[in-house]
């Protein structure tokens, strides 16, 4: 038999779920001037889940990522990583807690080589010695099809390779929670399939993934749960099939495309 709980049982149950929860947002809001870009957003992501985020252009998806990583701070609400309140913690500290991200508009270190971009992320994101991350970084390059560009300056890459580098660098930072912002756009069908395989492999390793993507068939072949954002509000969360079937989502989001 279990020991009787010390406090009230809901409290104990709450603590239990916090332990397996990688991310929790509670009533997070952010405005730019008069424009409310994130509107009382609450949701949580259990450890190991792959969550997809969809929503029309300007819905506030990337802003949500910036709030989670600490690149911008919320006006209201709180953000927890693995049960710890990080609402005011700087971005750099959150990386060390296991948050890795890619940028929608690639932001490579242009004066460093592709390989050095990864070495930097691995050495600082994981707080390890450079010599200890060399092999891991080379393997990530192979996995993301960047090995042939390893010694080229990141500033000389094509847009496609820059996007690959975004994913590779985020992987190198050693994330437990990986945030991917539109990395499939512009890929051919074959390349997209390879990308899906890479993300599946990360997922299989137990990494929690949140993926913003407009390429829905790629997204839905990986994620277990979808979250729909519109005008900064969460208008639906659930299993992909359920979300895609919902009338509201079809109108607001898919209606624009079909």
């Amino acid at each position, binding site marked *: 038999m279990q020991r009787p709980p010390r406090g009230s049982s809901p409290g104990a149950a709450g603590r239990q779920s916090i332990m397996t929860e990688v991310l929790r947002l509670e009533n997070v809001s952010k405005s730019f001037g008069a424009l409310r870009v994130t509107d009382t957003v609450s949701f949580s992501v259990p450890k190991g889940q792959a969550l997809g985020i969809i929503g029309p252009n300007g819905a506030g998806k990337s802003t949500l990522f910036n709030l989670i990583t600490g690149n911008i701070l919320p006006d209201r609400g709180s953000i927890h990583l693995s049960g710890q309140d990080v609402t005011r913690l700087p*971005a750099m500290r959150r990386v060390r807690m296991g948050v890795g*991200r890619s940028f929608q508009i690639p932001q490579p270190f242009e004066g460093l080589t592709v390989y050095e971009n990864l*070495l930097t992320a691995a050495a*600082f994101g994981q707080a390890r010695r450079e010599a200890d991350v060399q092999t891991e970084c*080379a393997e990530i390059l*192979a996995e993301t099809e960047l090995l042939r560009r*390893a010694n080229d300056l990141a500033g000389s890459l094509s847009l496609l390779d820059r996007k690959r580098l975004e994913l590779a660098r985020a992987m*190198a930072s050693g994330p437990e929670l990986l945030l991917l912002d539109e990395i499939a756009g512009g890929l051919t069908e074959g390349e997209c399939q390879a990308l899906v395989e890479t993300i599946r492999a990360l997922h299989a390793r137990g990494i929690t993934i949140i993926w913003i993507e407009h390429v829905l068939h790629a997204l839905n072949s990986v994620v277990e749960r979808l979250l729909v954002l519109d005008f900064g509000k969460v208008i639906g969360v659930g299993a992909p099939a359920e979300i895609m079937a919902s009338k509201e989502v079809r109108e607001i989001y898919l209606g624009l495309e079909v």
Partner: protein
Amino acid sequence: MQISVTTRTRASTIAGIAALALIGLGLILPAFASRSVIQDLFFILTLLTLAQLWNLIAGYGGMVSIGQQAFVGIGAYAMFAGVILWGWDPIAAIPLGLGAALVLAVPMAFFAFRLQGAYFAIGTWVIAEVTRLLVAQWKTLGGGTGTSLPREATADIWGVKAIAALLGLRDAAARDVLAYWLALAMAVGTMAAIYILLRSRNGLALAAVRDNDNAARSVGVDAARLKWAVFLSAAAMTGMVGALIFLQTARISPDAAFSVTTWTAYVIFIVVIGGIGRLEGPIIGVLVFWGLQTAFADYGSWYLFSLGLIAIAVMLFAPRGLWGLFTDRTGIALFPVQRRLTTTSQGDSRNG
């Protein structure tokens, strides 16, 4: 996958050997070189060190300061204070320059780091000017007109007698040799320290912050701490060089010690001409500058005017400096920092 990561190249191995040979030659040079050669080399080595330090903060750290003369000046004055007020030996007083520059650098960084781009540059210059004006009020050190190191102090500097005896020189010449050796040590030490920094993981972080500090923070780099560390160490070393320069001249004034032309404009010229953001740049730059100085310095303002024209021409036609021009054509780097990856896949060793 079997990997190897190398930084060294054939050119850099040769350069390393040549550098060691040059340092050796530099050490024994006073045994046969004339006093004027030693004085010229002192000038070159101290400017080279200042240029490397400015290159570190501006070229690698992205902090374009035009207030470095503040550290030269305060370092030199601290050394003079040690000698005149407390009767220290001038050599022992050199580290006071380091300490004083550090003490000034903390509030300067605190203030200037709040400013961006051109405002940062102007902010550092303003602080340097304020420091000059304050130091000019210091009556015991000569106020606005300056002062000299007392004869008793210069007559009996540590090691000068020994050098005079060893090389068969008069005291004044032996003093120049001592200053030259110290300048050599500072130049070599500074360049070695910068090279080691760039080869370490902090070198990657520095480049990452310069390229994109938002992204650098997003991979866990502590951009703010790195900037502080680089700015403070460059300032401290600049203060030490300032102390040495004015030990050699044995005379100081606020205008000379805090000269924005000499300690910052010339230094920027050297870095820009040679190639910013690379260790080889200031070496080329200082040689070009010394050549111009020797040939044309008598032409006064025309000389300064020409320096400006040359700098503009280089910025337009070779924005990465003379060394950048050379290295872009040939791919040669004497002090390479790039980590180059080579992989050899080895069959089935990684099945799983």
